[in-house]
């Protein structure tokens, strides 16, 4: 069955891009004979647990890479090949460079530079590998287009605006006052994202002005539009503006904490209506 996923579902499966989500759902259907709604719930649970494990394992190696650590302890192409191999059925020594080159040619993995895979792309590859543990080879879709390779996060442009899923690499296109959040903690490996201490999720403002030290592209009125506690003064001072922006991120995140901490699909997605087109094609999972 071909799935056309309701866009609001996509951020729950971060850092998986849409074609990987669809492929894993189809694999679940075939291998476990699960109906689409069951497959969705099973995959949601698997992603939730294994995403946490993926971040737990990758983070020290990525941090070492970001901080110029020793090569043996740093995230790299070689590290990824070895790590993927360690999770493969039968525990092969390492995935071959040839296989990685093939995946790259098919858009299944992106690179930041030679020898350095994109962090989120590598995490998605690894996550798919540990979710589809029985598959020797077919744990990935056949290919992904350039515009399909990104993972998705939640965004909200204003307190009374609807929640809109958005591709993580395109956040700079959103209005500066847009609040963004994701259950994918590895987002913090990219500039702009910060995570909650309780590790439930990460958040940011959509646009950043400066990566180091981090400064969001915000205006005083952007901060005031989200601030629920009355007035804030001296927002024309850049330091106070940026500090307030960070404080506000934590306040907004706190309000969404329950949603993530419950560990279950949110209510609006729990009851999934499966709309199937004639002939079994174009199956559509839609949140009620």
């Amino acid at each position, binding site marked *: 069955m071909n799935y056309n996923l309701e866009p609001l579902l996509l951020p729950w499966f971060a850092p998986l891009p849409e074609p990987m989500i669809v492929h894993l759902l189809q694999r679940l259907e075939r291998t476990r004979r699960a109906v689409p709604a069951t497959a969705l719930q099973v995959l949601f649970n698997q992603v939730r*647990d*294994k995403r*946490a*494990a*993926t971040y*737990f*394992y990758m*983070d*020290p*190696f990525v*941090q*070492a890479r970001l*901080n110029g*650590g*020793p090569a043996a*302890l740093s995230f790299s192409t070689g590290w990824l090949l070895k790590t993927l191999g*360690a*999770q493969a059925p039968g525990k092969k020594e390492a995935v071959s460079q040839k296989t990685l080159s093939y995946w790259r040619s098919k858009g299944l993995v992106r690179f930041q530079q030679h020898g350095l895979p994109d962090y989120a792309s590598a995490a998605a590859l690894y996550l798919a590998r*540990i979710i589809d543990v029985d598959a020797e080879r077919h744990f990935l879709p056949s290919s992904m287009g350039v515009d399909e390779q990104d993972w998705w996060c939640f965004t909200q442009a204003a307190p009374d605006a609807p929640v809109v899923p958005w591709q993580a690499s395109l956040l700079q296109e959103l209005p500066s006052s847009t609040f963004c959040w994701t259950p994918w903690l590895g987002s913090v490996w990219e500039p702009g994202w910060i995570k909650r201490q309780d590790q439930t999720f990460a958040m940011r403002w959509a646009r950043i002005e400066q990566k180091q030290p981090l400064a969001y592209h915000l205006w005083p009125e952007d901060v005031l539009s989200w601030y629920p506690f009355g007035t804030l003064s001296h927002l024309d001072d850049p330091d106070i503006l940026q500090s307030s922006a960070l404080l506000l991120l934590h306040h907004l995140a706190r309000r969404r904490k329950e949603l993530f901490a419950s560990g279950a699909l949110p209510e609006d997605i729990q009851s999934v209506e499966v709309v199937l087109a004639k002939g079994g094609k174009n199956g559509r999972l839609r949140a009620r």
Partner: protein
Amino acid sequence: MADYARDNAYVLDPDLLEEMHRLDIQGQMLTRSMGGVLPERPDFAGIKKVLDLGCGSAEWALQVAGRSADIQVVGIDKAPRMIELAQARAYAEKRANARFRIGDITEPLPFLADNFDLVNARLLRGFMATSAWLPFIQECLRVLRPGGLLRLTEDEILLTNSLACDHLNFRGYKNLATLGKAFSGHHPGITTRMPGWLKEAGFQQVQSRVFAMDISYGADAYESFFFDFKTAIELLKPFSLQMNPEYTVEENEALCEQAIEEMQDPGFSGKLYLVTTVGEK
């Protein structure tokens, strides 16, 4: 078919990502719920050199290293990926005073005698044969300096109001007893013997502290324990089926699902009983 009966073989693959993550969550839960890294001596007086045996991904060792740059910590574990992860974490957390190496702690320890102020080990019963405990404790005595402390923490029994959870648990104790890693099918029986082993090895001032960790729905340790339990029974399925051929795959699945369901009920209550035994050389 896996050879679980080998001496000192771990019944799970410790290099599997999910198992590494589970053990880390479990370690955090124990440290937090039992009053910190060293509640028996919270000021770490006289402790400068620490050995963590079966250190896993270094959750405990790195917390100790984080207390003071003056404390040197060495961690040892049999699982290569665990050690690689521990080394990367030490680098990421800037703990130059923590070092990690691959090693089998059921073999003679690769350290000189009279070397450490504190030797720590937690939850070894998953792989340690009952016959290996006394030689292991004697090795700990050897590497400790005079006056140094051995600190062993083991769980003894989990009691809950979930029939399925208890059933899985007692089946686990029985399986470990069959493999020679527990003394009975009713409870492992390790903690009751630890003080005697320490005294027999030559430790003095041996003391035990019993800890009842509340893992009831909504308790502080609940989320971590539930994750630990849920992940463990999933990873243990092949082991359970091999050890208990009287169960079909479907029956085993149903039992696991029932346990998960009952543990997610707001009325779920339970306690995990652990014992820390400390002795001085």
